[in-house]
Every structure is written in C-alpha cells, then in structure tokens.
C-alpha cells in the first residue's frame, strides 16, 4: 500500500476504487487462485518437513527393563508400566498361560489410553471406540489408522524384560 501519492498520478478516486466492476471478477478469481497456490505451497512445505524429519531421524536406544515377573499376572491380567522412558505408558497383558504381549497404551488416533477388554479379547480405546487386536496390535475397528506400537518382550528366567519398541513412529 502506498503511503504518499505523487502529484502527477491518477485522480484520488482511482486509488480508492482502482478496479472496475467488470475487472472485479478477474481480481476475485486471481486472489482466490493465489490463496489456493499458497495452500499448495504449504502442503509441499509439510511434505518437506516430513522428509527432513525422516532424514535426520535417529533410532532411539531402547533400554532393557524388567517389567514384571512371569507369574505375577493371572491369564487375562494386565499391568501398566512405563517404557522406554518415564511417562510413556505401556500395557502388558497375559493372554495365555505361556503368552504375554505388551503395547504402547497411547491410542494412535488421538493418544487416549487404551485398556484390555477381557471379554472381547482386544484392546479398546474408550474415547472414539477404536479397537486393536491383542495378537499384533492391528486396528480392528474405529478411527485409528495405525497399529499400536508393540513392546518386544523377552522372558529370562521368571522375569519379563522389555527390550525394544516396534512400529513406533518418529
């Protein structure tokens, strides 16, 4: 926007009403097209951001941590533990006499805490009814599109040890 007018320029009214009605159709369309193109640029920048994150991604070092004793839970029992860092809740489920699985407790939709529904034998998110398979964490139903990150467990003697996370995004 010009702050000062040159004395020899067009009449004042042309500054205020610089576009004729017929031309206004063009101006509106051009401005809207400019807005769409800038939105397209924003999408491209978003993709570049993801690319940069993937290039500079460093896989975290997962600690080995004892999460429970093998005989601590009954079949169908659960236990919440933090892994790989404090505040990152995971859920351990004993699915059979000799089978334990553990997943991140954070729903992949909007991060609500999932819980184990014993009757249905699945993990459920109470916020938006997202259901996950207890076998592999895959989405069974609902708005989540990604499976739950899985905590890989090892059994050493009588203890269950978390060794790493699988399927966890950056």
């Amino acid at each position, binding site marked *: 926007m010009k702050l000062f007018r040159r004395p020899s320029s067009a009449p004042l009214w042309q500054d205020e009403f610089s576009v004729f009605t017929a031309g206004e159709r063009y101006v509106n*369309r051009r401005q809207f097209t400019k807005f769409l193109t800038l939105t*397209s640029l924003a999408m491209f920048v978003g993709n570049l951001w993801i690319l940069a994150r993937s290039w500079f991604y460093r896989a975290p070092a997962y600690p080995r941590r004892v999460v429970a004793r093998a005989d601590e839970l009954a079949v169908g029992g659960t236990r919440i533990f933090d892994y790989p860092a404090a505040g990152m809740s995971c859920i351990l489920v004993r699915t059979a006499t000799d089978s334990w699985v553990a997943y991140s407790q954070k729903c992949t939709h909007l991060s609500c805490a999932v819980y184990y529904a014993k009757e249905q034998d699945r993990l459920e998110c109470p916020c938006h009814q997202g259901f996950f398979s207890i076998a592999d964490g895959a989405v069974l139903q609902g708005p989540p599109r990604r499976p739950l990150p899985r905590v890989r467990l090892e059994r050493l003697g009588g203890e269950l040890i978390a060794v790493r996370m699988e399927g966890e*995004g*950056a």
Partner: protein
Amino acid sequence: MKIDPPQSRGLTAIDGAMALIVILLMVQIWLLSATLESFLAGHREAALPGAVVSGVLFLGCLALYLFVVRIDAEARKG
C-alpha cells in the same frame, strides 16, 4: 452486467484453471495426510516420494496460477 465475449472466454479459462488447482490441491492434501500417517507408523521410506510428488503438484498449481495472472493481465489491457 453484460460481459463481452473475449472477457467471458477469459473468465471461463480462469474458472477451468481454478478447478484444476482445486483438484491438484485435494490430491496434495491427501498425499500429505498419507505420508504423515506412514511416517508416524515408522515407514520413513515413503517420505521422499511423497515430497517429490507434492513438489510436482505444487509446480502444477504455480503454473496454473501464472496462467491465471497472464489471462488477468491480458483482460485488463484490453
């Protein structure tokens, strides 16, 4: 207000370009969403093709915008 035929043709061309931009933009939004989902699921190999295709779509939008600007300039000239 009645618009003379050349102006009307210009408007039709601009409308067509706008429709194409909208289609490209919808594809680009879907692409960003899919790439993000894939990235968050730990599949980082999708990031490069996603960025390349998104760049091509942006260039398409930019070309159409420049086309609209040219039509607009021609219509204003006379």
